[in-house]
């Protein structure tokens, strides 16, 4: 039989095979940085970035489910659980997150086209690829150190991207604001992580959660509560949940539109994935969740956060005239909806098997949110021009006549953001509300969940007001300043078409991705091994 050290060494050596597409992405990014010096051309950089992404997709496709098989093969015939030992864990969420990251990578390269110039194309796309590699890694890291570094792999390039297409004071302010608040949140995150490490003596996430759960059977450690609150606060910044949302409107308004589309999706996406990992919702420890509803107030904190976030976002979005600010507040509101799934998953009792576990609903909504929000930003980018910048909602007047195709696409995205049937937004909201309403929990919590679902439904109605206002301006009002019909980049329009096709397809037939989100978040407990944990 293999000894513990053998298993560990095998897992260490094998970890390289679990991150090959990410290695390809980072390698392409390095090539792009070099290319930017020797041959600074936009077309060459975009071509190279697309080749890198395609290569990563091909690798991901060829690996298939082989990763998971290989992962379990390492521990075959031994009593050890790989989730308590490995730093990279390709099971569960990992594959879905990687596909999502790569798909968003293609869309963002298309969106980058109008905003990059020959002299900054290489740097811009290189940073973008590092970001994509980082967000793909978040789905599979199982270690606090790697998790933090993967999160920073997304944050650091974002600072550069916000600064690269530097044009005015507004953009500088946005970059500095995002930078300062982001490093503050990273600091808080590290503070929390250091406590978690100090309490458990291990950086392995699976082992750490198993130790915490076992310890919390007897008594709750206040240190662990403080630590997890700090971690939630830091992720709250990334998903722009109240009260960590201050930066969002200013950054969205000031930043370059293509980069803002990235900020609207990627940090939220990785923030939620990292949150479900750290709360133990993916790798469920044997002794139950470390921060259960029956013993700690953490699910209640998330409950309050969800309600305040969605209400705050929707009410303030009503007051906005600036299009990008409006989308910022709408993004805050949608984070509130997505938190519902996390709250539900935190409160589920150990051996329950509901139809929706909460996390899968959140993942579905994340995909739907990404499609519709990034699509909306793509259209803003498409309409925007030097002579006729698109800033306020009034700028969109008359688009229904002058640009029928793009206005129709925008209407699809806005209807999806409202949650109209036949769109992905509806399917996502439906899954979230059902998961909250049908959660198999005891009465006091059950009532809280029902209140949550009702508040979310009221919020969805408030949201309809400001989204419909945009539709009304596009179709019913005469143009104040006609959007220029100069020759414009078609790539953002192409990206918007792709997003719209996704929005409608996943709305009409949600099973297309609902099946994979459910497979990615199985409710089974990972068999823990107390002997291994105790030794660490």
């Amino acid at each position, binding site marked *: 039989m293999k000894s513990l050290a053998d298993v560990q060494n095998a897992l260490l050596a094998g970890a390289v095979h679990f991150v090959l597409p990410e290695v390809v992405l980072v390698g392409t990014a390095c090539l792009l*940085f070099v290319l930017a010096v020797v041959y600074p051309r936009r077309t060459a950089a975009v071509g190279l970035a697309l080749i890198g992404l395609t290569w990563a997709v091909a690798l991901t496709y060829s690996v298939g489910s082989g990763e998971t098989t290989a992962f379990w093969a390492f521990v075959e015939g031994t009593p050890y659980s790989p989730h308590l030992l490995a*730093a990279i864990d390709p099971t569960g969420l990992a594959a879905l997150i990687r596909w999502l990251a790569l798909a968003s990578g293609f869309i963002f390269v298309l969106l980058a086209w109008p905003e990059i110039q020959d002299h900054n194309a290489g740097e811009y796309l290189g940073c973008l690829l590092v970001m994509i590699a980082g967000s793909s890694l978040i789905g599979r890291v199982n270690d606090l150190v790697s998790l933090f*570094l993967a999160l920073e792999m997304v944050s650091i*390039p974002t600072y550069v991207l916000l600064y690269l297409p530097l044009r005015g004071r507004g953009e500088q302010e946005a970059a500095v604001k995002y930078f300062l608040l982001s490093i503050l949140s990273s600091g808080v995150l590290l503070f929390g992580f250091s406590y978690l490490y100090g309490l458990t003596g291990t950086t392995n996430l699976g082992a750490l959660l198993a130790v915490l759960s076992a310890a919390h059977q007897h008594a709750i450690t*206040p240190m662990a509560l403080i630590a997890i609150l700090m971690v939630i606060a830091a992720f709250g910044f990334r998903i722009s949940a109240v009260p960590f949302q201050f930066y969002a409107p200013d950054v969205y308004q000031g930043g370059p539109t293509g980069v803002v589309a990235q900020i609207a999706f990627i940090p939220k996406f990785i923030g939620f994935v990292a949150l479900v990992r750290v709360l133990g919702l993916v790798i469920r420890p044997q002794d139950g969740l470390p921060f259960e509803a029956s013993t700690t107030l953490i699910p209640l904190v998330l409950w309050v956060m969800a309600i305040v976030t969605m209400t705050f976002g929707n009410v303030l979005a009503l007051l906005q005239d600036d299009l990008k600010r409006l989308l910022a507040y709408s993004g805050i509101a949608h984070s509130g909806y997505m938190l519902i799934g996390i709250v539900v998953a935190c409160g589920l009792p150990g051996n329950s098997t509901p139809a929706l576990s909460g996390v899968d609903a959140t993942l579905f909504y994340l995909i739907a949110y990404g499609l519709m929000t990034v699509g909306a930003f793509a259209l803003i980018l498409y309409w925007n021009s030097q002579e006729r910048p698109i800033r306020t909602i009034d700028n969109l007047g008359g688009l229904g006549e002058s640009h029928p195709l793009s206005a129709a696409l925008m209407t699809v995205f806005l209807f999806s953001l409202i949650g109209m049937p036949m769109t992905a937004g509806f399917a996502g909201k439906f899954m979230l509300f059902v998961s909250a309403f049908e959660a198999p929990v005891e009465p006091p919590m059950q009532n809280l969940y029902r209140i949550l679902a009702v508040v979310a439904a009221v919020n969805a109605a408030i949201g309809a007001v400001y989204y419909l206002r945009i539709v009304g301006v596009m179709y019913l009002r005469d143009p104040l300043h006609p959007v220029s019909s100069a020759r414009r980049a078609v790539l953002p329009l192409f990206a918007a078409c792709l997003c719209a096709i996704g929005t409608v397809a996943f709305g009409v037939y949600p099973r297309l991705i609902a099946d994979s989100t459910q497979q990615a978040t199985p409710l089974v407990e990972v068999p823990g091994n107390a002997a291994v944990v105790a030794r660490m």
Partner: protein
Amino acid sequence: MTFHDALFLILATASAVSALGVVVSSSIIRSAIWLLFMLMGVSGLYFFLGAEFLGAAQLIVYVGGTMVLVVFGGMLTTRGPFDHVPVGLVGWVLGGGLSLALFALLVQASLSFVSHPRTDTALPGTGPLGLTLLGVPETPGQTAYLLPFEIVSIHLLVVLIAAAYLARAKRRPTSTHPEADHG
């Protein structure tokens, strides 16, 4: 009181007083200097606890590197109104109240936390630490940090590119490429 206790008291008091100095002082440069003494005090505590590597790293990285950067940055950028940052009464009350609450919470949590002293008293020196970093765990149960180590190098690369770009941007205005704006 043993020699150990006295030494600990001196180091802890020095760190705490300097930490207060960082907050109380309204001049940025003075704050930075107080921070220097605070970091030195903390590294002294690490040495005192026997964590030599951590203490040395603290001295080299924070006291030696980061602090010099902070002081230089402060000297280069603080002009006129930003030299002194006076804090209003509201700031004192709000900030002070919040930090006092956090402090009380942390003290309460640390006091309620029962620590189990390690059975193996030997702390790893730099040799084993370096081996772990490069992927050769000494004992079962340890994690190796080769992959994170590589990720850090990617961070440094991106930061270097950003720094180079910031420095270059001033010499090459964007207006030299007007034709590349919309194509």
